[in-house]
């Protein structure tokens, strides 16, 4: 902390702010996030009051809607599961200095791979619990493989052809959504389906209902998310492979000089990120949808994951509380929309404000670090 001294008159204000942000300890950063959330909510409540609605009721409903009942908690955890997984997928890539904006596309590819592999293999396996477990296993593995491959593609393009991964992943999102949209309305469309979707997964392909009885949530799903976080944290901090990734993220040149194969690392990072995104797609398909619909109408979990990851400072462990915060906000938004006459646009605006406030300090930190601001000792 002492390295950034205010006595250095020549240091520009920008440098000082950047320096402060870069030097903040973990606790301080948590403090910034909590403060920003509170401040954003305060502004949101003022807007609610100005729009002519009762801000106290809004605030109460925000809490009640996120954690006020068993249903609310289940709904919060349902959203959180997806936000944690999608955030983790983004965080892995950002950690290694690769900007994977394509988590949404990898999520969609993983989801359809999961659903179709289950539907196609179901007739050859026994029904009931045993078949269910086997099919979930097959679906999840396929989702991870296809999501990983769809992530590896832009990784290889970046490593071996110099294609900017931000552009390629954005384009691959469109391609995934377009192609899967065509598939579910054409060759993959269920025979009985009245709307655009695949066949339904068999009834016995579902996560068991423990603790909560909610048709769209199972603690198993949340457990998968938490286990993934632990797994990734272990890989990043305790393995040589993870060390290479993180080092490349901190200082690509230094990593290269110390013998890291940067091209391989980029491809491996994108593959791992895509694998997690694919797993997110599998959890979404099995736990929530029970079939696959037109991906153009599916939530933007892959993009929300970017905000979750930023809030967590791209730290895999930090993705859990960040994901729960996002899940709680989303859940409360749904509750307020159903239980009050505050228009949905206003609710989404206020949630957006919170996201903006909590993500921006971290975004500035990343930009600052990238531009080499914040003092000479960096």
């Amino acid at each position, binding site marked *: 902390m002492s390295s950034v001294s205010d006595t250095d008159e020549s240091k520009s204000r920008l440098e000082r702010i950047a320096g402060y942000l870069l030097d903040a300890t973990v606790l301080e950063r948590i403090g910034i996030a909590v403060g920003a959330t509170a401040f954003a909510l305060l502004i949101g409540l003022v807007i609610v009051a100005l729009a002519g609605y009762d801000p*106290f*009721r809004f605030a*109460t*409903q925000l809490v*009640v809607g996120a954690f006020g009942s068993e*249903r609310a908690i289940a*709904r919060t955890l*349902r959203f959180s599961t997806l936000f944690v997984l999608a955030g983790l997928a983004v965080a892995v890539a950002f950690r290694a200095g690769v900007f994977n904006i394509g988590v949404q596309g990898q999520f969609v590819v993983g989801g359809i791979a999961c659903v179709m592999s289950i539907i196609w293999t179901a007739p050859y396996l026994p029904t009931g619990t045993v078949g269910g477990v086997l099919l979930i296993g097959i679906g999840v593995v396929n989702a991870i493989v296809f999501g990983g491959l769809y992530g590896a593609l832009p990784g290889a393009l970046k490593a071996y052809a110099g294609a900017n991964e931000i552009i390629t992943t954005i384009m691959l999102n469109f391609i995934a959504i377009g192609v899967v949209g065509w598939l579910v309305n054409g060759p993959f469309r269920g025979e009985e389906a*009245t*709307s655009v*979707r695949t066949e*339904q997964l068999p009834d016995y392909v579902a996560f068991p209902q423990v603790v909560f009885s*909610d*048709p*769209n949530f199972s603690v198993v799903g949340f457990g998968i998310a938490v286990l993934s976080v632990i797994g990734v944290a272990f890989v990043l901090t305790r393995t040589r492979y993870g060390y290479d990734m993180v080092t490349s993220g901190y200082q690509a040149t230094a990593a290269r000089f110390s013998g890291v194969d940067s091209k391989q690392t980029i491809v491996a990072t994108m593959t791992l990120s895509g694998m997690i995104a694919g797993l997110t797609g599998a959890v*979404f398909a099995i736990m*929530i*949808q*029970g*079939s696959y*619909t037109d991906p153009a*109408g*599916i*939530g933007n979990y892959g993009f929300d994951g970017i905000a979750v990851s930023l809030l967590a400072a791209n730290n895999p462990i930090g993705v859990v509380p960040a994901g729960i915060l996002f899940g709680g906000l989303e859940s409360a938004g*749904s*509750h307020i*929309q*159903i*239980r*009050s*006459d505050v228009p*949905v646009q206003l609710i989404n605006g206020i949630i957006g404000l919170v996201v903006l406030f909590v993500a921006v300090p971290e975004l500035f930190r990343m930009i600052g670090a990238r531009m080499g601001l914040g003092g000479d000792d960096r």
Partner: protein
Amino acid sequence: MSRQTQSEGDSDARPATPNSAGTVDRRTFLASTAAVGAVGLAGCADDEEGAEYNAAIISSPAGFDDNAFNDNARDGLREAAEEYDLDINDVEETEEAEYESVQAELAEQDLYDVIVMVGQQHYDPLVNNSETYPDQNWMLINDHVEGAANVSGWIEMNHEMSFLAGVAAGTLTTESIEHEGSSTNPDESVVGFVGGEDIDLINAFETSYIEGVEWVNDDAEVLTGYGGSFSDTSAANDVAASQIDDGADIVWHAASAAGGGAFSAAQSNDRFALGVDVDQSITEDQYADVILGSAVKALNEATYDVVTAAMDGDWGGVSGERNLSIEQGGIDFITGQEFEGSLPAALDENLEDAKDAFIAGEIELTCGPTGC
């Protein structure tokens, strides 16, 4: 058969509800509950349970304020709210994956006389929820749930609507009509059809429209084309303009929001067009001078009928599979605002004949309401 005339006719016949018996209208009633609510603010109740009746409506993935489908369904509830002490909860949910839990959460409140769901995307979740919440009344638009007495499922007979549009186009292309610089060519019988996306649903519109034209006018030629989009007005404009170049004097569109392009093509080429779904000479009033009329489906009448039946305790009268059809009175062709009383009598005669023939079961169409 606009909503206005029906509600006037009906309100006389309908028994007065307890609350509308007095002079208290909904606005003053709400104001008074708000005052009471403000006094008793201390308890943070979850909802202002003020009104005697409650209805909820969940949007289709397109959301509200679409000037069409969703709004049309919601309008029926709003009309009912003018006559009854009814609170409407608009729930805009654009994510299909959320429908199951949103439906369940509304039903769990045990508050709503009916929950209206717009769009067939609600079908799969409703199959479960209608069973889980057997005492909840549900209204589903565009599909029905077999064997569920608590569901009122409505299917729009789009093919009948398209047929009427065809009858109107086939009739009017032979007549001489002039209005503000636009005119028909009575010597030739050529009409146009502009589709949005080339999909099953719109193909059914196209085929039924052609059958309608040919039913009334054997010699007519129908030019058809697709703009490839429900929102790109310039693509619809190109298709309509080329049809007009090839001799079409009346163009009908089934292109949703892109249909404005067909109207502007008619306007700039001094020809006419027909509207779809709602009276488009009102919703697209900048083109009212070329919109001879519109083939309409009265979704608002359906939601109105269902919600009032639920409030009057007459659910049995609306439950099960329902059709929005010519026979039921929910599908019609109405004259444009600027052409009321000025169109040839042959139009009304032919439309009446066509409707009578439908009711008598004399017309068999190739396509169904959503595909061929």
